[in-house]
Protein backbone atom coordinates (compact mmCIF):
# COMPACT_ATOMS: atom_id res chain seq x y z
CA UNK A 1 0.00 0.00 0.00
CA UNK A 2 2.44 2.65 1.16
CA UNK A 3 5.12 1.38 -1.27
CA UNK A 4 2.77 2.15 -4.17
CA UNK A 5 2.03 5.53 -2.64
CA UNK A 6 5.74 6.22 -2.21
CA UNK A 7 6.30 5.16 -5.84
CA UNK A 8 3.68 7.72 -6.84
CA UNK A 9 4.96 10.53 -4.66
CA UNK A 10 8.70 10.32 -5.29
CA UNK A 11 10.83 12.93 -3.54
CA UNK A 12 11.66 14.44 -6.94
CA UNK A 13 7.96 15.02 -7.61
CA UNK A 14 7.35 16.58 -4.22
CA UNK A 15 10.43 18.81 -4.70
CA UNK A 16 9.20 20.05 -8.06
CA UNK A 17 5.73 20.57 -6.55
CA UNK A 18 7.06 22.71 -3.70
CA UNK A 19 9.62 24.55 -5.84
CA UNK A 20 8.37 24.59 -9.43
CA UNK A 21 10.80 25.57 -12.17
CA UNK A 22 10.04 28.18 -14.87
CA UNK A 23 6.62 28.97 -13.40
CA UNK A 24 4.93 32.27 -14.35
CA UNK A 25 4.07 33.41 -17.85
CA UNK A 26 6.92 35.19 -19.70
CA UNK A 27 7.45 36.92 -23.02
CA UNK A 28 5.06 38.57 -25.41
CA UNK A 29 2.29 36.18 -26.47
CA UNK A 30 1.74 38.12 -29.70
CA UNK A 31 5.35 37.93 -30.91
CA UNK A 32 6.22 35.67 -33.87
CA UNK A 33 6.61 31.98 -33.07
CA UNK A 34 4.75 32.29 -29.79
CA UNK A 35 1.51 30.55 -28.92
CA UNK A 36 -0.46 30.27 -25.73
CA UNK A 37 -3.04 27.65 -24.81
CA UNK A 38 -5.32 27.03 -21.86
CA UNK A 39 -6.02 23.41 -21.01
CA UNK A 40 -8.28 22.05 -18.28
CA UNK A 41 -8.97 18.67 -16.85
CA UNK A 42 -12.79 18.83 -16.86
CA UNK A 43 -13.26 16.04 -14.36
CA UNK A 44 -11.19 17.58 -11.58
CA UNK A 45 -10.73 21.23 -12.57
CA UNK A 46 -6.93 21.31 -12.88
CA UNK A 47 -5.93 24.14 -15.23
CA UNK A 48 -2.81 25.28 -17.03
CA UNK A 49 -2.13 28.30 -19.23
CA UNK A 50 1.04 27.51 -21.14
CA UNK A 51 3.06 29.67 -23.53
CA UNK A 52 5.63 28.36 -26.02
CA UNK A 53 8.18 30.43 -27.92
CA UNK A 54 9.79 28.70 -30.90
CA UNK A 55 12.62 30.23 -32.87
CA UNK A 56 14.68 28.69 -35.65
CA UNK A 57 13.57 25.17 -34.83
CA UNK A 58 14.47 25.51 -31.16
CA UNK A 59 12.21 25.65 -28.10
CA UNK A 60 13.39 29.02 -26.76
CA UNK A 61 11.04 29.21 -23.81
CA UNK A 62 8.10 27.52 -22.14
CA UNK A 63 6.29 29.33 -19.35
CA UNK A 64 3.06 28.59 -17.55
CA UNK A 65 0.55 29.44 -14.87
CA UNK A 66 -1.31 26.56 -13.34
CA UNK A 67 -3.45 25.32 -10.50
CA UNK A 68 -3.78 21.68 -9.58
CA UNK A 69 -2.45 18.72 -7.67
CA UNK A 70 1.16 17.83 -6.93
CA UNK A 71 1.39 15.49 -9.92
CA UNK A 72 0.13 18.05 -12.45
CA UNK A 73 2.26 20.84 -10.99
CA UNK A 74 5.46 18.81 -10.78
CA UNK A 75 4.90 17.48 -14.27
CA UNK A 76 4.76 21.01 -15.73
CA UNK A 77 7.96 21.90 -13.90
CA UNK A 78 9.79 18.81 -15.19
CA UNK A 79 8.49 19.41 -18.72
CA UNK A 80 10.02 22.88 -18.88
CA UNK A 81 13.36 21.60 -17.58
CA UNK A 82 13.42 18.99 -20.32
CA UNK A 83 12.36 20.95 -23.38
CA UNK A 84 13.58 24.54 -22.94
CA UNK A 85 16.59 25.13 -25.19
CA UNK A 86 16.17 21.83 -27.03
CA UNK A 87 15.82 21.51 -30.81
CA UNK A 88 12.15 20.93 -31.55
CA UNK A 89 12.59 17.41 -32.93
CA UNK A 90 14.46 16.34 -29.81
CA UNK A 91 11.78 17.90 -27.60
CA UNK A 92 9.13 15.99 -29.56
CA UNK A 93 11.03 12.74 -28.96
CA UNK A 94 11.10 13.47 -25.22
CA UNK A 95 7.36 14.18 -25.35
CA UNK A 96 6.69 10.88 -27.11
CA UNK A 97 8.86 8.96 -24.64
CA UNK A 98 7.03 10.49 -21.68
CA UNK A 99 3.67 9.76 -23.28
CA UNK A 100 4.62 6.10 -23.75
CA UNK A 101 5.77 5.88 -20.14
CA UNK A 102 2.49 7.36 -18.88
CA UNK A 103 0.35 5.13 -21.07
CA UNK A 104 2.38 2.02 -20.28
CA UNK A 105 0.27 0.96 -17.25
CA UNK A 106 3.48 0.67 -15.22
CA UNK A 107 5.02 -1.88 -17.61
CA UNK A 108 7.40 0.50 -19.42
CA UNK A 109 10.97 0.83 -18.14
CA UNK A 110 11.75 4.58 -18.14
CA UNK A 111 14.80 5.80 -20.10
CA UNK A 112 16.70 8.10 -17.74
CA UNK A 113 18.96 9.41 -20.52
CA UNK A 114 15.93 10.87 -22.29
CA UNK A 115 13.59 11.62 -19.39
CA UNK A 116 15.96 12.66 -16.56
CA UNK A 117 13.78 13.79 -13.57
CA UNK A 118 10.67 12.68 -15.46
CA UNK A 119 11.48 9.04 -14.71
CA UNK A 120 10.04 9.80 -11.28
CA UNK A 121 6.62 9.73 -12.91
CA UNK A 122 6.94 6.01 -13.71
CA UNK A 123 4.90 5.25 -10.56
CA UNK A 124 2.05 7.48 -11.76
CA UNK A 125 1.39 5.13 -14.67
CA UNK A 126 0.05 2.59 -12.17
CA UNK A 127 -2.70 4.99 -11.09
CA UNK A 128 -5.01 5.43 -14.10
CA UNK A 129 -6.89 8.31 -12.46
CA UNK A 130 -3.65 10.30 -12.12
CA UNK A 131 -2.21 9.80 -15.62
CA UNK A 132 -4.29 12.69 -16.93
CA UNK A 133 -2.86 14.90 -14.16
CA UNK A 134 0.68 14.08 -15.29
CA UNK A 135 -0.15 14.66 -18.96
CA UNK A 136 -2.06 17.95 -18.62
CA UNK A 137 0.86 20.31 -19.24
CA UNK A 138 2.50 17.94 -21.75
CA UNK A 139 -0.63 17.94 -23.90
CA UNK A 140 -0.85 21.71 -23.54
CA UNK A 141 2.78 21.99 -24.65
CA UNK A 142 2.16 19.87 -27.75
CA UNK A 143 -0.89 21.93 -28.66
CA UNK A 144 0.90 25.27 -28.14
CA UNK A 145 3.94 24.03 -30.05
CA UNK A 146 1.81 23.06 -33.06
CA UNK A 147 0.24 26.53 -33.00
CA UNK A 148 3.62 28.26 -32.64
CA UNK A 149 4.94 26.26 -35.61
CA UNK A 150 1.95 27.32 -37.68
CA UNK A 151 2.56 30.89 -36.58
CA UNK A 152 6.23 30.69 -37.65
CA UNK A 153 5.29 29.20 -41.02
CA UNK A 154 2.63 31.87 -41.49
CA UNK A 155 5.05 34.72 -40.87
CA UNK A 156 7.78 33.11 -43.03
CA UNK A 157 5.60 32.85 -46.14
Amino acid at each position, binding site marked *: *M*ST*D*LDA*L*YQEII*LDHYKHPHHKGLRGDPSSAGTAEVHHVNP*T*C*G*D*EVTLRVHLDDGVVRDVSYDS*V*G*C*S*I*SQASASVLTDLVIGKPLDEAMTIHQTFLELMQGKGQVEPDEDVLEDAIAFAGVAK*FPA*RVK*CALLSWMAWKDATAQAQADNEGSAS
Partner: protein
Amino acid sequence: MEGLLPDLEVIRKDFPILERTLAGGVPLVYLDSANTSQKPQVVIDSMVDHLERHNANIARAMHQLGAESTEAFEAARDQVAAFLNAPSRNEVVFTKNATEALNLLARTIELGPGDNVVITEMEHHSNIVSWQLACERSGAELRWFGLTDEGELDMSNADQLVDEHTKVVAFTWVSNMLGTINPVADLAALARAHGALSVVDASQAAPQLTVDVQAVDCDFLVFTGHKVCGPTGIGVLWGREQLLNELPPFHGGGEMIETVTMARSTYAKAPHRFEAGTPPIVEAVGLGCAVDYLRHIGLEAIHRHEQAITAYALEGLQTVPGVRVMGPLEATRRGGAISFELDGVHPHDIAQVLDSRGVAVRAGHHCAKPAHARFGVQSSTRMSSYLYTTPAEIDALVEGLHHTRSYFKVG
Protein backbone atom coordinates in the same frame (compact mmCIF):
# COMPACT_ATOMS: atom_id res chain seq x y z
CA MET B 1 -23.45 8.49 20.51
CA GLU B 2 -26.98 9.85 20.43
CA GLY B 3 -28.94 9.74 17.17
CA LEU B 4 -27.14 6.80 15.58
CA LEU B 5 -29.30 4.08 14.07
CA PRO B 6 -29.80 1.59 16.92
CA ASP B 7 -29.09 -1.48 14.78
CA LEU B 8 -26.22 0.03 12.80
CA GLU B 9 -24.21 -3.20 12.87
CA VAL B 10 -27.19 -5.11 11.46
CA ILE B 11 -27.71 -2.49 8.76
CA ARG B 12 -24.06 -2.73 7.77
CA LYS B 13 -24.54 -6.45 7.24
CA ASP B 14 -27.17 -5.59 4.62
CA PHE B 15 -24.43 -4.07 2.45
CA PRO B 16 -22.07 -6.83 1.28
CA ILE B 17 -19.53 -4.41 -0.23
CA LEU B 18 -18.75 -2.98 3.21
CA GLU B 19 -17.04 -6.24 4.11
CA ARG B 20 -14.50 -6.17 1.33
CA THR B 21 -10.91 -5.13 1.72
CA LEU B 22 -8.75 -3.11 -0.62
CA ALA B 23 -5.13 -3.28 -1.78
CA GLY B 24 -2.88 -4.11 1.15
CA GLY B 25 -5.73 -5.78 3.02
CA VAL B 26 -7.11 -2.54 4.45
CA PRO B 27 -10.86 -2.44 5.12
CA LEU B 28 -13.07 -0.19 3.00
CA VAL B 29 -14.14 3.09 4.61
CA TYR B 30 -16.71 4.34 2.13
CA LEU B 31 -17.28 8.08 2.53
CA ASP B 32 -18.48 8.86 -0.99
CA SER B 33 -22.21 8.17 -0.66
CA ALA B 34 -23.26 11.58 -2.01
CA ASN B 35 -21.57 10.44 -5.21
CA THR B 36 -23.30 7.09 -5.20
CA SER B 37 -24.66 5.00 -2.35
CA GLN B 38 -23.87 1.35 -1.79
CA LYS B 39 -26.55 -1.28 -2.41
CA PRO B 40 -28.17 -3.53 0.18
CA GLN B 41 -28.43 -7.26 -0.56
CA VAL B 42 -32.20 -7.02 -0.84
CA VAL B 43 -31.91 -4.62 -3.78
CA ILE B 44 -29.31 -6.80 -5.49
CA ASP B 45 -31.49 -9.88 -4.92
CA SER B 46 -34.62 -8.19 -6.27
CA MET B 47 -32.83 -7.39 -9.52
CA VAL B 48 -31.24 -10.83 -9.85
CA ASP B 49 -34.59 -12.49 -9.15
CA HIS B 50 -36.29 -10.38 -11.80
CA LEU B 51 -33.66 -11.22 -14.39
CA GLU B 52 -33.60 -14.91 -13.45
CA ARG B 53 -37.35 -15.50 -13.26
CA HIS B 54 -39.50 -12.69 -14.66
CA ASN B 55 -37.55 -11.06 -17.47
CA ALA B 56 -39.66 -9.88 -20.40
CA ASN B 57 -40.48 -6.58 -22.02
CA ILE B 58 -43.33 -4.70 -20.38
CA ALA B 59 -46.75 -3.55 -21.53
CA ARG B 60 -46.48 -5.19 -24.95
CA ALA B 61 -45.76 -8.86 -24.32
CA MET B 62 -48.96 -10.95 -24.33
CA HIS B 63 -47.57 -13.76 -22.24
CA GLN B 64 -47.16 -14.65 -18.60
CA LEU B 65 -43.63 -13.35 -18.25
CA GLY B 66 -44.68 -10.09 -19.88
CA ALA B 67 -47.48 -9.75 -17.37
CA GLU B 68 -45.13 -10.48 -14.45
CA SER B 69 -42.54 -8.02 -15.69
CA THR B 70 -45.17 -5.31 -16.25
CA GLU B 71 -46.55 -5.91 -12.79
CA ALA B 72 -43.09 -5.61 -11.22
CA PHE B 73 -42.33 -2.41 -13.14
CA GLU B 74 -45.65 -0.81 -12.24
CA ALA B 75 -45.30 -1.94 -8.62
CA ALA B 76 -42.06 0.04 -8.52
CA ARG B 77 -44.04 3.10 -9.61
CA ASP B 78 -46.38 2.55 -6.65
CA GLN B 79 -43.42 2.15 -4.30
CA VAL B 80 -41.89 5.43 -5.51
CA ALA B 81 -45.25 7.20 -5.31
CA ALA B 82 -45.53 6.09 -1.68
CA PHE B 83 -41.93 7.19 -1.01
CA LEU B 84 -42.79 10.69 -2.27
CA ASN B 85 -46.31 10.77 -0.81
CA ALA B 86 -47.51 11.52 -4.33
CA PRO B 87 -51.28 11.99 -4.71
CA SER B 88 -51.28 9.80 -7.83
CA ARG B 89 -49.07 7.03 -9.23
CA ASN B 90 -49.51 8.66 -12.67
CA GLU B 91 -47.29 11.49 -11.44
CA VAL B 92 -44.20 9.26 -11.22
CA VAL B 93 -42.18 9.24 -14.45
CA PHE B 94 -39.15 6.97 -14.73
CA THR B 95 -36.15 8.59 -16.43
CA LYS B 96 -32.52 7.60 -16.89
CA ASN B 97 -31.36 9.75 -13.95
CA ALA B 98 -32.04 13.11 -12.29
CA THR B 99 -30.12 14.88 -15.06
CA GLU B 100 -32.48 13.49 -17.70
CA ALA B 101 -35.49 14.47 -15.59
CA LEU B 102 -34.22 18.08 -15.37
CA ASN B 103 -33.48 18.13 -19.09
CA LEU B 104 -36.96 16.80 -19.79
CA LEU B 105 -38.43 19.80 -17.96
CA ALA B 106 -36.01 22.31 -19.49
CA ARG B 107 -36.90 20.95 -22.94
CA THR B 108 -40.67 20.83 -22.57
CA ILE B 109 -41.64 23.85 -20.43
CA GLU B 110 -42.42 26.61 -22.87
CA LEU B 111 -40.17 29.67 -22.60
CA GLY B 112 -39.82 32.74 -24.80
CA PRO B 113 -38.16 36.16 -25.01
CA GLY B 114 -39.14 38.29 -22.03
CA ASP B 115 -39.53 35.25 -19.76
CA ASN B 116 -37.00 34.40 -17.10
CA VAL B 117 -35.81 31.30 -15.24
CA VAL B 118 -34.41 31.61 -11.71
CA ILE B 119 -31.90 29.07 -10.35
CA THR B 120 -29.29 29.28 -7.57
CA GLU B 121 -25.52 29.51 -7.40
CA MET B 122 -25.31 26.22 -5.46
CA GLU B 123 -26.84 24.01 -8.13
CA HIS B 124 -25.28 20.87 -9.52
CA HIS B 125 -24.25 21.44 -13.16
CA SER B 126 -27.31 19.45 -14.28
CA ASN B 127 -29.62 22.12 -12.86
CA ILE B 128 -27.55 24.93 -14.39
CA VAL B 129 -26.58 23.80 -17.87
CA SER B 130 -30.02 22.40 -18.79
CA TRP B 131 -31.58 25.82 -18.06
CA GLN B 132 -28.74 27.68 -19.78
CA LEU B 133 -29.51 25.65 -22.91
CA ALA B 134 -33.24 26.30 -22.56
CA CYS B 135 -32.64 30.05 -22.22
CA GLU B 136 -30.25 30.12 -25.17
CA ARG B 137 -32.84 28.32 -27.30
CA SER B 138 -35.80 30.45 -26.28
CA GLY B 139 -34.35 33.87 -25.63
CA ALA B 140 -35.45 33.73 -21.98
CA GLU B 141 -33.25 35.28 -19.30
CA LEU B 142 -31.39 33.17 -16.72
CA ARG B 143 -31.19 34.58 -13.20
CA TRP B 144 -29.91 33.11 -9.97
CA PHE B 145 -29.93 33.46 -6.22
CA GLY B 146 -26.44 34.20 -4.87
CA LEU B 147 -25.00 32.68 -1.69
CA THR B 148 -24.13 34.14 1.68
CA ASP B 149 -20.66 33.67 3.16
CA GLU B 150 -22.16 30.95 5.36
CA GLY B 151 -23.15 29.00 2.26
CA GLU B 152 -26.88 29.64 2.41
CA LEU B 153 -29.13 31.14 -0.25
CA ASP B 154 -29.06 34.93 -0.25
CA MET B 155 -32.77 35.72 -0.28
CA SER B 156 -32.31 39.47 0.19
CA ASN B 157 -33.15 40.27 -3.44
CA ALA B 158 -35.77 37.55 -3.92
CA ASP B 159 -38.42 40.10 -4.83
CA GLN B 160 -36.32 41.48 -7.66
CA LEU B 161 -35.24 38.07 -8.95
CA VAL B 162 -38.65 36.42 -9.09
CA ASP B 163 -41.18 38.61 -10.88
CA GLU B 164 -44.27 38.32 -13.05
CA HIS B 165 -42.10 37.22 -16.01
CA THR B 166 -40.59 34.29 -14.10
CA LYS B 167 -41.68 30.99 -15.63
CA VAL B 168 -39.55 28.58 -13.60
CA VAL B 169 -37.79 28.65 -10.23
CA ALA B 170 -35.45 25.63 -10.04
CA PHE B 171 -33.41 24.86 -6.92
CA THR B 172 -31.73 22.09 -5.03
CA TRP B 173 -33.13 20.85 -1.74
CA VAL B 174 -29.72 19.88 -0.32
CA SER B 175 -26.47 21.18 -1.86
CA ASN B 176 -24.15 18.40 -3.00
CA MET B 177 -21.13 20.57 -2.21
CA LEU B 178 -22.03 22.85 0.71
CA GLY B 179 -24.47 20.47 2.34
CA THR B 180 -26.90 23.37 2.86
CA ILE B 181 -30.56 22.42 3.34
CA ASN B 182 -32.69 24.97 1.50
CA PRO B 183 -36.17 26.20 2.55
CA VAL B 184 -37.85 24.38 -0.34
CA ALA B 185 -41.44 24.95 0.75
CA ASP B 186 -40.80 28.71 0.98
CA LEU B 187 -39.17 28.74 -2.45
CA ALA B 188 -42.05 26.76 -3.97
CA ALA B 189 -44.52 29.21 -2.41
CA LEU B 190 -42.51 32.16 -3.74
CA ALA B 191 -42.64 30.68 -7.26
CA ARG B 192 -46.38 30.03 -7.03
CA ALA B 193 -47.06 33.56 -5.76
CA HIS B 194 -45.55 34.86 -9.01
CA GLY B 195 -47.26 32.32 -11.24
CA ALA B 196 -44.01 30.41 -11.87
CA LEU B 197 -43.43 26.66 -11.81
CA SER B 198 -41.18 25.28 -9.07
CA VAL B 199 -38.65 22.52 -9.81
CA VAL B 200 -36.93 20.83 -6.86
CA ASP B 201 -33.72 18.85 -7.33
CA ALA B 202 -34.01 16.29 -4.53
CA SER B 203 -31.01 14.18 -5.59
CA GLN B 204 -29.20 14.77 -2.29
CA ALA B 205 -32.35 15.13 -0.20
CA ALA B 206 -34.13 11.91 -1.12
CA PRO B 207 -31.46 9.68 0.46
CA GLN B 208 -31.64 11.35 3.87
CA LEU B 209 -34.80 13.44 4.35
CA THR B 210 -38.49 12.63 4.26
CA VAL B 211 -39.57 13.79 0.81
CA ASP B 212 -43.25 14.65 0.84
CA VAL B 213 -44.22 16.43 -2.37
CA GLN B 214 -47.56 17.49 -0.87
CA ALA B 215 -45.87 19.08 2.15
CA VAL B 216 -43.31 20.89 -0.02
CA ASP B 217 -46.16 21.86 -2.34
CA CYS B 218 -43.88 22.13 -5.36
CA ASP B 219 -44.79 21.55 -9.00
CA PHE B 220 -41.97 19.20 -10.05
CA LEU B 221 -39.33 17.23 -8.15
CA VAL B 222 -36.54 14.99 -9.41
CA PHE B 223 -34.15 12.50 -7.83
CA THR B 224 -31.86 9.70 -8.94
CA GLY B 225 -32.01 6.01 -8.07
CA HIS B 226 -28.38 5.27 -7.34
CA LYS B 227 -28.09 7.70 -4.42
CA VAL B 228 -31.01 6.10 -2.54
CA CYS B 229 -29.49 2.59 -2.45
CA GLY B 230 -30.94 1.77 -5.88
CA PRO B 231 -29.14 1.00 -9.12
CA THR B 232 -27.72 3.41 -11.69
CA GLY B 233 -29.63 3.99 -14.93
CA ILE B 234 -32.88 5.09 -13.34
CA GLY B 235 -34.17 8.40 -12.03
CA VAL B 236 -37.54 9.87 -11.21
CA LEU B 237 -39.46 12.90 -12.34
CA TRP B 238 -42.46 13.67 -10.17
CA GLY B 239 -44.88 16.36 -11.36
CA ARG B 240 -48.44 17.44 -10.71
CA GLU B 241 -50.59 15.26 -12.95
CA GLN B 242 -52.32 18.14 -14.69
CA LEU B 243 -49.03 19.91 -15.40
CA LEU B 244 -47.42 16.76 -16.76
CA ASN B 245 -50.33 16.25 -19.13
CA GLU B 246 -50.05 19.85 -20.34
CA LEU B 247 -46.37 19.47 -21.26
CA PRO B 248 -45.53 18.40 -24.81
CA PRO B 249 -43.79 15.01 -25.23
CA PHE B 250 -40.01 14.81 -24.70
CA HIS B 251 -38.80 11.74 -26.61
CA GLY B 252 -40.93 10.25 -29.38
CA GLY B 253 -41.23 6.50 -29.72
CA GLY B 254 -43.06 3.41 -28.59
CA GLU B 255 -45.23 3.38 -25.47
CA MET B 256 -45.68 7.16 -25.36
CA ILE B 257 -48.45 7.30 -27.98
CA GLU B 258 -52.19 6.84 -28.17
CA THR B 259 -52.26 6.30 -31.91
CA VAL B 260 -49.85 6.82 -34.79
CA THR B 261 -50.55 7.44 -38.46
CA MET B 262 -47.95 8.39 -41.06
CA ALA B 263 -49.13 11.99 -40.89
CA ARG B 264 -49.44 12.53 -37.15
CA SER B 265 -49.69 10.95 -33.70
CA THR B 266 -51.54 11.56 -30.50
CA TYR B 267 -49.85 11.02 -27.19
CA ALA B 268 -50.50 9.02 -24.08
CA LYS B 269 -51.06 10.76 -20.77
CA ALA B 270 -48.42 10.84 -18.03
CA PRO B 271 -46.49 8.88 -17.03
CA HIS B 272 -46.27 6.92 -20.31
CA ARG B 273 -46.18 10.16 -22.29
CA PHE B 274 -42.59 10.60 -21.08
CA GLU B 275 -41.46 6.98 -21.15
CA ALA B 276 -40.74 6.36 -24.82
CA GLY B 277 -39.12 3.06 -25.68
CA THR B 278 -38.32 0.11 -23.44
CA PRO B 279 -37.69 1.61 -20.01
CA PRO B 280 -35.05 0.51 -17.46
CA ILE B 281 -37.21 -2.35 -16.15
CA VAL B 282 -34.92 -4.21 -13.79
CA GLU B 283 -33.55 -0.87 -12.58
CA ALA B 284 -37.09 0.21 -11.68
CA VAL B 285 -37.55 -3.04 -9.76
CA GLY B 286 -34.31 -2.35 -7.87
CA LEU B 287 -35.32 1.24 -7.16
CA GLY B 288 -38.75 0.22 -5.86
CA CYS B 289 -37.07 -2.23 -3.52
CA ALA B 290 -34.54 0.41 -2.42
CA VAL B 291 -37.10 3.03 -1.46
CA ASP B 292 -39.07 0.38 0.44
CA TYR B 293 -35.85 -0.52 2.27
CA LEU B 294 -35.32 3.13 3.26
CA ARG B 295 -38.94 3.51 4.37
CA HIS B 296 -38.65 0.33 6.41
CA ILE B 297 -35.68 1.77 8.32
CA GLY B 298 -37.40 5.15 8.41
CA LEU B 299 -36.27 8.39 6.81
CA GLU B 300 -36.57 10.20 10.16
CA ALA B 301 -34.18 7.70 11.74
CA ILE B 302 -31.81 7.92 8.76
CA HIS B 303 -31.83 11.72 9.01
CA ARG B 304 -31.03 11.58 12.74
CA HIS B 305 -28.18 9.19 11.99
CA GLU B 306 -26.80 11.46 9.28
CA GLN B 307 -26.97 14.46 11.61
CA ALA B 308 -25.16 12.61 14.39
CA ILE B 309 -22.42 11.42 12.03
CA THR B 310 -22.16 14.85 10.39
CA ALA B 311 -21.82 16.60 13.75
CA TYR B 312 -19.14 14.09 14.77
CA ALA B 313 -17.32 14.62 11.47
CA LEU B 314 -17.45 18.42 11.74
CA GLU B 315 -15.97 18.10 15.23
CA GLY B 316 -13.26 15.71 14.03
CA LEU B 317 -12.31 17.86 11.05
CA GLN B 318 -11.76 20.84 13.39
CA THR B 319 -8.96 18.91 15.08
CA VAL B 320 -6.94 18.80 11.86
CA PRO B 321 -4.83 21.97 11.53
CA GLY B 322 -5.43 23.82 8.24
CA VAL B 323 -8.83 22.30 7.51
CA ARG B 324 -11.48 24.73 6.29
CA VAL B 325 -15.03 23.39 5.97
CA MET B 326 -17.28 24.98 3.36
CA GLY B 327 -20.96 25.55 4.03
CA PRO B 328 -22.88 25.67 7.32
CA LEU B 329 -20.88 24.59 10.38
CA GLU B 330 -23.91 23.31 12.32
CA ALA B 331 -25.00 19.78 11.52
CA THR B 332 -28.66 20.64 11.97
CA ARG B 333 -28.54 23.05 9.01
CA ARG B 334 -26.95 20.67 6.57
CA GLY B 335 -26.92 17.29 4.91
CA GLY B 336 -24.31 14.56 5.18
CA ALA B 337 -21.84 15.83 2.59
CA ILE B 338 -18.94 17.91 3.91
CA SER B 339 -16.56 19.62 1.48
CA PHE B 340 -13.33 20.99 2.87
CA GLU B 341 -9.90 22.30 2.04
CA LEU B 342 -6.66 21.30 3.73
CA ASP B 343 -3.97 23.98 3.66
CA GLY B 344 -0.99 23.05 1.53
CA VAL B 345 -2.35 19.81 0.06
CA HIS B 346 -4.39 19.55 -3.12
CA PRO B 347 -7.65 17.55 -2.93
CA HIS B 348 -6.33 14.97 -5.43
CA ASP B 349 -3.36 14.31 -3.25
CA ILE B 350 -5.53 14.09 -0.14
CA ALA B 351 -7.84 11.60 -1.84
CA GLN B 352 -4.87 9.54 -3.04
CA VAL B 353 -3.31 9.25 0.41
CA LEU B 354 -6.70 8.49 1.99
CA ASP B 355 -7.34 5.84 -0.67
CA SER B 356 -4.10 4.10 0.21
CA ARG B 357 -5.62 3.70 3.70
CA GLY B 358 -8.94 2.45 2.31
CA VAL B 359 -10.79 5.73 2.85
CA ALA B 360 -12.84 6.62 -0.26
CA VAL B 361 -13.73 10.32 -0.65
CA ARG B 362 -14.34 12.55 -3.64
CA ALA B 363 -11.91 15.22 -4.84
CA GLY B 364 -12.59 17.88 -7.42
CA HIS B 365 -15.38 20.33 -8.12
CA HIS B 366 -18.23 17.81 -7.56
CA CYS B 367 -20.08 19.15 -10.64
CA ALA B 368 -20.60 22.43 -8.77
CA LYS B 369 -17.96 24.74 -10.26
CA PRO B 370 -19.95 27.97 -9.67
CA ALA B 371 -20.42 27.15 -5.98
CA HIS B 372 -16.67 26.56 -5.66
CA ALA B 373 -15.92 29.79 -7.53
CA ARG B 374 -18.23 31.68 -5.15
CA PHE B 375 -15.92 30.72 -2.29
CA GLY B 376 -12.73 31.29 -4.28
CA VAL B 377 -11.92 27.60 -4.33
CA GLN B 378 -10.80 25.63 -7.38
CA SER B 379 -11.59 22.22 -5.97
CA SER B 380 -12.25 20.54 -2.65
CA THR B 381 -12.28 17.21 -0.88
CA ARG B 382 -15.70 15.87 0.05
CA MET B 383 -16.61 13.23 2.59
CA SER B 384 -20.18 12.02 2.54
CA SER B 385 -21.77 9.59 4.95
CA TYR B 386 -24.92 7.51 4.83
CA LEU B 387 -27.03 5.21 6.95
CA TYR B 388 -24.23 2.63 7.15
CA THR B 389 -21.50 5.08 8.25
CA THR B 390 -19.98 4.54 11.69
CA PRO B 391 -18.17 6.99 13.99
CA ALA B 392 -15.10 4.75 13.65
CA GLU B 393 -15.07 5.48 9.93
CA ILE B 394 -15.03 9.21 10.66
CA ASP B 395 -12.08 8.55 13.01
CA ALA B 396 -10.32 6.78 10.13
CA LEU B 397 -10.87 9.84 7.93
CA VAL B 398 -9.55 12.24 10.56
CA GLU B 399 -6.50 10.06 11.25
CA GLY B 400 -5.96 9.84 7.50
CA LEU B 401 -5.96 13.63 7.23
CA HIS B 402 -3.39 13.95 10.02
CA HIS B 403 -1.30 11.38 8.16
CA THR B 404 -1.75 13.30 4.89
CA ARG B 405 -0.34 16.42 6.50
CA SER B 406 2.71 14.60 7.73
CA TYR B 407 3.14 12.75 4.42
CA PHE B 408 3.25 16.06 2.55
CA LYS B 409 5.28 17.67 5.36
CA VAL B 410 2.73 20.42 5.93
CA GLY B 411 2.97 22.59 9.04
